[in-house]
């Protein structure tokens, strides 16, 4: 995995960002989209996994089988049993409870970084596409500078400076992916802006801002949703890796990456301690990737036929 994440993000960006300009995206109506959705296994599987994860995270606030932080040294490193389905860790904490609680951190990490990347990247991209010229150049070159800097490295540096924290790490990841969002937004907005219906709108006197709101945004929304979903999985990869390295969420808060990091010391005693959170991370990343791919299949008209 490259939690540098760049390749994943590129995998995300490349097919849609600077693709052939032309057909503005998303001619599908919702009903059509829904009919297609039922035939997209990616979307169904991905959607289900993501839904379960979100539910797990919400559930963990009200109920977990045991207190995820509750230490019980007398049952440390006990294997799976009817009382503790996935066993206990080195402090005797219930692994299942910690897994459920860990979903919170994962979702939180994704939300923070996608929000940062989107809330800054989308307006920047729209602005660049709309204005063009020097401003466009300035925005996109600044983006290039940020994009060249590996995201994980930025997170490590910030952790070194400010101490380990989920939020700090996610801000670093979010900032690192602003250019990705900006590029995708700009590329697809340019395609829409060059279409004749935008020219027609200008010919009946719609100002630039109204054109963005009425024509550009509705037409690129689908692409941005896809982008957000795929970026979510990149953020999860980055966050769990930082936690694993001990640079993210500090203990004792339950987080999947950190659970693996600790379990590594007990591989001889109970290798499954590392496997359970590993599966959780795997499913989460897979879920968001499939969701993104599925949404793209359903929403991006260029991939139809």
């Amino acid at each position, binding site marked *: 995995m490259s939690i540098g994440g760049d390749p994943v993000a590129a995998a995300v960006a490349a097919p849609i960002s600077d693709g052939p300009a032309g057909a*503005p995206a998303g001619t599908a109506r919702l009903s059509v989209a829904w009919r297609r959705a039922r035939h997209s296994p990616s979307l169904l599987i991905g959607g289900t996994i993501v839904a379960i994860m979100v539910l797990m995270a919400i559930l963990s606030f009200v109920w977990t089988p045991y207190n995820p932080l509750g230490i019980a040294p007398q049952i440390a490193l006990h294997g799976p049993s009817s009382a503790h389905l996935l066993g206990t860790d080195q402090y005797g904490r219930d692994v299942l409870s910690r897994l459920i609680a860990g979903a919170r951190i994962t979702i939180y990490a994704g939300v923070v970084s996608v929000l940062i990347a989107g809330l800054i990247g989308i307006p920047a991209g729209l602005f660049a596409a709309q204005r063009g010229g020097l401003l466009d150049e300035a925005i996109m070159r600044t983006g290039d500078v940020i994009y060249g800097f590996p995201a994980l490295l930025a997170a490590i540096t910030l952790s070194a400076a400010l101490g380990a924290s989920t939020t700090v790490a996610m801000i670093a990841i979010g900032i690192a992916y602003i250019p990705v969002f900006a590029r995708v937004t700009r590329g697809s907005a340019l395609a829409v802006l060059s279409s*004749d*219906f935008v020219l027609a*709108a200008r*010919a009946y006197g719609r100002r630039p801002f109204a054109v963005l709101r009425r024509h550009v945004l*509705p037409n690129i929304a689908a692409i941005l949703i896809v982008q957000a979903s795929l970026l979510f999985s990149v953020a999860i990869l980055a966050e769990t890796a930082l936690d694993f390295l001990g640079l993210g969420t500090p203990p004792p808060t339950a987080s999947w990456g950190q659970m693996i990091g600790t379990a590594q010391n007990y591989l001889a005693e109970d290798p499954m301690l590392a496997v359970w959170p590993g599966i959780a991370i795997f499913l989460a990343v897979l879920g968001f990737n499939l969701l993104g791919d599925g949404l793209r299949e359903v929403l991006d008209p260029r991939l139809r036929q």
Partner: protein
Amino acid sequence: MDSTDAVPAVPAASAVPAPILAARGVSKVYGGQRGLGVRALADVDVSIAEGATVGIVGESGSGKSTLARLLMALETPTTGEIRYRGEVVSGLPERRLRSFRRRVQIVFQDPMSSLDPRMRVHDILAEPLRALDAGDERTRVPELLDAVGLPRTSARLYPHEFSGGQRQRIAIARALGPMPEVLVADEPVSALDVSVRAQILNLLKRLIGEFSLTLVFISHDMAVVRHLCDEVVVLYRGEIVETGETDQIYARPRHEYTRALLAAVPALGHLPTPPGGAAA
């Protein structure tokens, strides 16, 4: 005509009616600051009289679409100016163009890309009315659909639910919304199937009469221009090579390029003549 617009008094002595829309010495250079840009139009003068039907013909690279955008004040000429009823409109900020926008509208070539795929037909037709305060959309939208021969129920549908010809009707209805005096049509039938083309031509011809439109018809198709327009402007590489009345130009083209263009039009039963004879 609406007198709220700054319409200059027509010089009383003038025998020739003042043009409703005119380009004066217009040039357009794209990109490049140090003279490296592409020259799309060079020193073009076009004068369109009220009620005229003017065809602007040329091949790719002739600058005809650029001229259309300049006449629409969608782009600013590098030199020269566009005047509407004597008032300069080129280079004006958008807020000062509202009355111009109401009076000059445009139809584009590709009915796929000229309608927003995310909007229902009702909204597509209502948008110009909203943007220009040009009437109540609840009464105007059905009227517009009637005018272009589409059922009123079309309003609920999206563009992709129509065929090419029907979409072009929608685009025409949108342009008619603000009750324009001038309609600029940029290759409006070129992307259509042959069997549908005649319908749209008939529709345009009928609407010119019904709405007393001045028509600026931009096309590469000599036959269609001949059918629709009383005057012709022939563009070649950004310059006007010939202009005059349709019958005259088609019967006795004076410029070599016009002759080549006419000779190249395929006609039933025989091969067209390539420029400069049989072999190039």
